[in-house]
């Protein structure tokens, strides 16, 4: 069912196939693709119109999704009852439900055959729809936006004969050689990552690549999973295996490539998510900063601040899109460990670039719409001092 139309068809042509076949650190060229940037101050019709225009600027949504099964990975990071101050999560830390509904509408309009909204919300043992109800989202905003919309909790074993499918990482991967993900991903032709633009205490930033950390099922990569087989339901977050590396996933999945590598989250998480971006390619990266928070990925009293950058972005390559987003946030996408926003971690976009996913070099990235220099919203200048930000529960 998994149609191999992904990278060759939608990423820029130059060197893509060649890059994937070469050893990671010796590759001369990696793919590039344009990134569209638009101003947007609200989540309703303005968002839909601006997003549709960005899709047109990128060559049209129809050629990407017509007749296809499209999977939208949204971001419902952390617990369902957490807010930045009094603000609903969709205005500060999560993908906004109205934007998801808008994108579903545009996908349907562009001819998508089937649309699935997926997320592996933290330790949630039931349906995604039920998580949304608990969180105070109306799932009908999504399921009612088009016909044939399904919601899938990818933390749970996928219904059917094959709950999980193995996704090998091209070039062998940084952390794991392959990842076992919900078969919902394997049944998908097109993967859309809808991310909120945020800083992240472990990974520096959370954009379209980091958003897909939640694709790793907590029944396999979560806390308290059994030794031999996936857990029947999630028991916890992704701390012990993903962040700390204090144990391996169940034996039914492949272990890490190098168990002696650093057991440090700032080393592990960027590699984990760069691997996922290579193994389970993102065909459409949507980064939203109509409103968001600075300082971290989840609210922290006196550590995170609500802001309204009024910017949205789209691209068909997750690395080029995230690189442009880093620049919009006031960071240098070529920066690496030790420099903002990677003071305590490695650069995800560099690691994904090494896997041949895309270039982070702005000189190689065409920006359409609002120029980066006009779109810049400096997250550090609009946040609290960094010294207040350590600790607390991590999210995506």
């Amino acid at each position, binding site marked *: 069912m998994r149609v191999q139309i992904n990278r060759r068809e939608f990423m820029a042509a130059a060197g893509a196939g060649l890059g994937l076949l070469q050893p990671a650190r010796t590759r001369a060229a990696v793919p590039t693709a344009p990134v569209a940037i638009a101003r947007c101050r609200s989540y309703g019709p303005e968002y839909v119109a601006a997003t549709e225009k960005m899709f047109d600027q990128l060559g049209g949504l129809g050629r990407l999704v017509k007749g296809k099964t499209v999977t939208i990975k949204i971001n419902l990071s952390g617990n369902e009852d957490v807010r930045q*101050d009094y603000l609903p999560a969709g205005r500060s830390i999560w993908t906004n439900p109205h934007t998801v509904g808008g994108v579903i509408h545009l996908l349907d309009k562009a001819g998508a055959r089937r649309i699935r909204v997926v997320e592996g919300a933290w330790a949630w043992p039931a349906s995604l729809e039920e998580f949304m109800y608990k969180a*105070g989202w109306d799932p009908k905003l999504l399921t009612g936006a088009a016909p044939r919309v399904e919601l899938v909790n990818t933390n749970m074993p996928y219904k059917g004969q094959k709950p999980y499918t193995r996704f090998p990482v091209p070039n062998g991967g940084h952390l794991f050689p392959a990842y076992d993900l919900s078969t919902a991903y394997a049944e998908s032709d097109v993967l859309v990552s809808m991310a909120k633009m945020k800083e992240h205490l472990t990974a520096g930033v959370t954009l379209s690549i980091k958003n897909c950390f939640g694709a790793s099922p907590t029944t396999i990569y979560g806390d308290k999973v059994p030794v031999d087989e996936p857990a029947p339901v999630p028991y916890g977050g992704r701390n012990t295996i993903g962040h700390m590396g204090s144990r391996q996933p169940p034996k039914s999945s492949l272990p890490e490539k190098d168990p002696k590598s650093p057991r440090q989250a700032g080393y592990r998480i960027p590699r984990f998510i760069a691997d996922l971006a290579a193994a389970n390619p993102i065909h459409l990266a949507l980064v939203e900063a109509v409103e968001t928070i600075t300082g971290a990925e989840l609210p922290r009293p006196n550590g995170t601040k609500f802001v309204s950058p009024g910017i949205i972005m789209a691209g068909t390559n997750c690395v080029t899109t995230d690189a442009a987003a880093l620049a919009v946030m006031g960071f240098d996408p070529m920066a690496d460990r030790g420099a903002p926003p990677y003071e305590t971690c490695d650069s995800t976009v560099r690691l994904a670039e090494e896997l041949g996913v895309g270039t982070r070099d702005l000189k190689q990235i065409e920006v359409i719409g609002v120029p980066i220099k006009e779109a810049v919203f400096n997250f550090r200048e609009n946040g609290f001092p960094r010294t207040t930000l350590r600790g607390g529960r991590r999210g995506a």
Partner: protein
Amino acid sequence: MAQLQHAIPIRWAGGPLEIAVRGRTESLNPQARQALERFHDPASLGVLEGSPIDCLVVSWAGGLPEDAAQQKSMAPLLEAAGKRNLAVVGWVAGAADPNAAIAAAKSAGLAGLAIQGFKGQSDFPVILCCERAAVAWDSTAPALAVMDNVWPGVSRQSFGADAGPTSTPWLDSNGWYVQLARARSETPLWLIFDPPGNGNVTPAQSYSTAICDSAAPGARWVISLDANLRSGLAEGNSTARETLKQIGAAAGFYRNHEEWRTFHSLGVVGVISDFTGENFEMSGEILNLMARRNLQFRVIWKSQAMSMPFTGLKALVYADTAAPAAGLRRRLMSFVEQGGLLVAGPKWGPEGKPANPDFPTQFEVRAFGKGRLAVARQELSDAYQVATDTQLLTSHANDLVKVYNGASSGCSLFTGSPDGKRALLQILSYANAGRLSSGLRTVWVRQKYRSCRLWSIGAEGPTPLEASPSEEYFGFEYRIPQATPASFALEFEV
């Protein structure tokens, strides 16, 4: 009698009998012994000046040689209490002869006695003290007192390997039992329990939690001070006085809102049981864990189940081992046929067609009429799983209340006045911090109300709150001011 029904009781530990009893069960250091002696002195009542606490529960008889000395030496304290309009109730325990204790109490002018295990008749006010499972619900006593309670708070086990299955802390609470009792009897319920011992200092906030956990659902805690606080009060310590002041403020707050005790649960899930024997263990624990999951429930005693309206209920849980009587069974199946969910044990019966849910559950779910049956595959043994599965099967789409940025160690209680004109949402925090550090709180409610007033526990007056429509959902939201304590109440005008 009426005085006892509205009293705020405090265990006033002092005198030779108290010293004898405590000397047998705990190590009494000189300071603690001195405090017990001083609390027997009428001058000790000075610490209650200005406090709403108006009932002393004193040791009266224990079947020990010190009984006589205790009763004889009590006269000055009783006289001083009378001058302060404090009712005095004698505590009778152990091998004491209840009839002799009653005669002595009458003679001494006590307002009543609280007698453990008393089964006789008396024209003297006797509060029946017993364990939870042995309460004489139909008694005409001025109050019922239960003794096998827990000190409310975050369970000490939570800090070890015994945290809840989702890593949330276990809570110790008596609230579920109070709801169970209130559904059965309107007689005032006193809860007897002491602060954790071992010489620990119990924080003032922890005392407030004990009062809230008891009073929010409609009972009274017989306030019991730890040895350190007694000593501090006896020595005139200002911190100790401040702690007692806070205890009095919390207790007085609930007496000022005595009408809240008459409110009934607005929960969407009803739990039906006879709450006796082994059914008490399972059904009681289901209530306890539903409360922990903030699943608003209604207690339905089986004896009332034929007459109680099921209006507003989305689900019923029938967890008793024995099948219900034919009439009740028909009524429950009718509830399902009309669209409700019935959660039942494995012997329920074969009705319905398979309609498995999208999550693993210990229940076989079947469609029947417009509703569903969830019949356990095996005998019910895990109350946590029953509560969890019931909540998911009922669906959070039917939630009445949500709290954002609330305490992870919190519970909520949603009730309505008998005339339907008011609703009350009580938010209780079981952490020892009086205020939250997790950020500004928002309360979501499903229904639109005409007005809302915020009551901080212990506050004399309310703060009006405005509702705003939820931005990402239906329903309405209230922004709780930052300075609000961790526990508070929202009173709505319907």
